């Protein structure tokens, strides 16, 4: 494998042989080898792999946005969400038992939605790995998985949030919820002012993924999370 480093990292100065252009990296080789061996040995089938891939491609933060928008407009639904979020998810078409019948093997069917108030702001992290409510938010963003975010958020939450452009006033408590492998969390931010006449669809547009992690707040006109993107060498084929 070539020694690729992110720009500016000290590793770029390491001694190395003349750069060789390789078509396929060691991790790509290992991925193919493990998948093919597992299938050849009957540990799972190619069909299992295909079905799980299909499910993975079907999830994303739009489900979470729908959940929050519906809760904002329907107090009874909101109460059900806060009481039993996994059950309430079925009302917006999200079944945590998918795609295996018992959920994904790494996401237990256990979710708690954290409601923000005028005096309380929530933000989520997994300090031990990268636990994340996949059925509602899709795959976690890279920054959420970094040791940097995991190290610092629990100790310096206001500073880290400020780096995301979110300044929480001192009178508002910041509560960091550290996921563990048995329970998933998601933030339900407060409905912003100036959205009184909005439809659920309009509201859902401003409930972005970052708002449900807790590193941003929804507001009219803010419909996307903007971060620098590291491009893939061999991106996922559509």
């Amino acid at each position, binding site marked *: 494998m070539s*020694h690729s480093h992110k720009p500016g990292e000290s*590793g770029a100065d390491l*001694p*190395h*042989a003349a750069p060789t252009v390789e*078509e*396929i*990296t060691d*991790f*790509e*080789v*290992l*991925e193919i*080898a*493990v*998948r*093919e*061996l*597992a299938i050849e*040995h009957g*540990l*799972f089938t190619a069909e299992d*792999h295909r079905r*799980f*891939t299909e499910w*993975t491609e079907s999830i994303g933060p739009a489900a979470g946005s729908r959940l929050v928008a519906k809760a904002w407009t329907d107090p009874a639904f909101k109460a059900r969400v806060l009481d039993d979020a996994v059950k309430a998810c079925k009302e917006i078409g999200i079944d945590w038992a998918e795609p*295996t019948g018992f959920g*994904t*093997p*790494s996401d*237990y069917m256990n979710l708690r939605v954290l409601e923000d108030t005028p005096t309380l702001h929530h933000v989520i*992290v997994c*300090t*031990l*790995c*990268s636990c994340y409510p996949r059925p509602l938010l899709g*795959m976690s*963003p*890279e*920054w959420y998985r*970094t*040791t*940097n975010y995991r*190290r*610092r958020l629990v*100790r310096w939450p206001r*500073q880290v949030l400020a*780096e*995301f452009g979110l300044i929480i006033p001192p009178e508002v408590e910041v509560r960091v919820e550290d996921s563990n*492998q048995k329970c998933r969390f998601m933030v339900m931010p407060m409905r912003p002012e100036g959205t009184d006449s909005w439809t659920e669809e309009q509201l859902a547009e401003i409930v972005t993924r970052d708002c449900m992690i807790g590193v941003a707040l929804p507001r009219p006109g803010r419909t996307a999370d903007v*971060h*620098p*993107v*590291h491009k*893939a*060498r*061999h*991106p*996922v*084929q559509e």
Partner: protein
Amino acid sequence: MSARRDLLEQQALIGSIQPAVHVPQNWNYEVEAPLFKAYAHPPHDVGGQFDAPILYEEKEEEQWEANVYVTCEVLGWRGVWNSEERRRRADNDLGYALYLGIPYYGRWIMAAARMLVDKNHIALTELIEKIAEVKARNAKK
């Protein structure tokens, strides 16, 4: 380039990725309790550690990364391993150099390969031969 030069460069690279330590370490005869606790601390338990601000970025997923996620999950689906052994042991308890150095899904697939060998689902030689075969197959393209 000579074989000796290759070897020296490889050894320099290995040395460069060893974790920085600030106490002598050479199989100490005795280890005081606080140091023992520090050695026993799992590398992935990072909450509260110091770090400098970085640019928080998104990452476009590589095809192999998407495949690794699914392979590891499907191995769980079919009962080959469970969430606890994956998270707390296989993917995380790797020592500092590996845990901090290799890509997120690189850890996952190395863990899966090691687990399949450890549980005797595949033989180590079989894995090595398969890797060579996959490399050869893709080199021809």
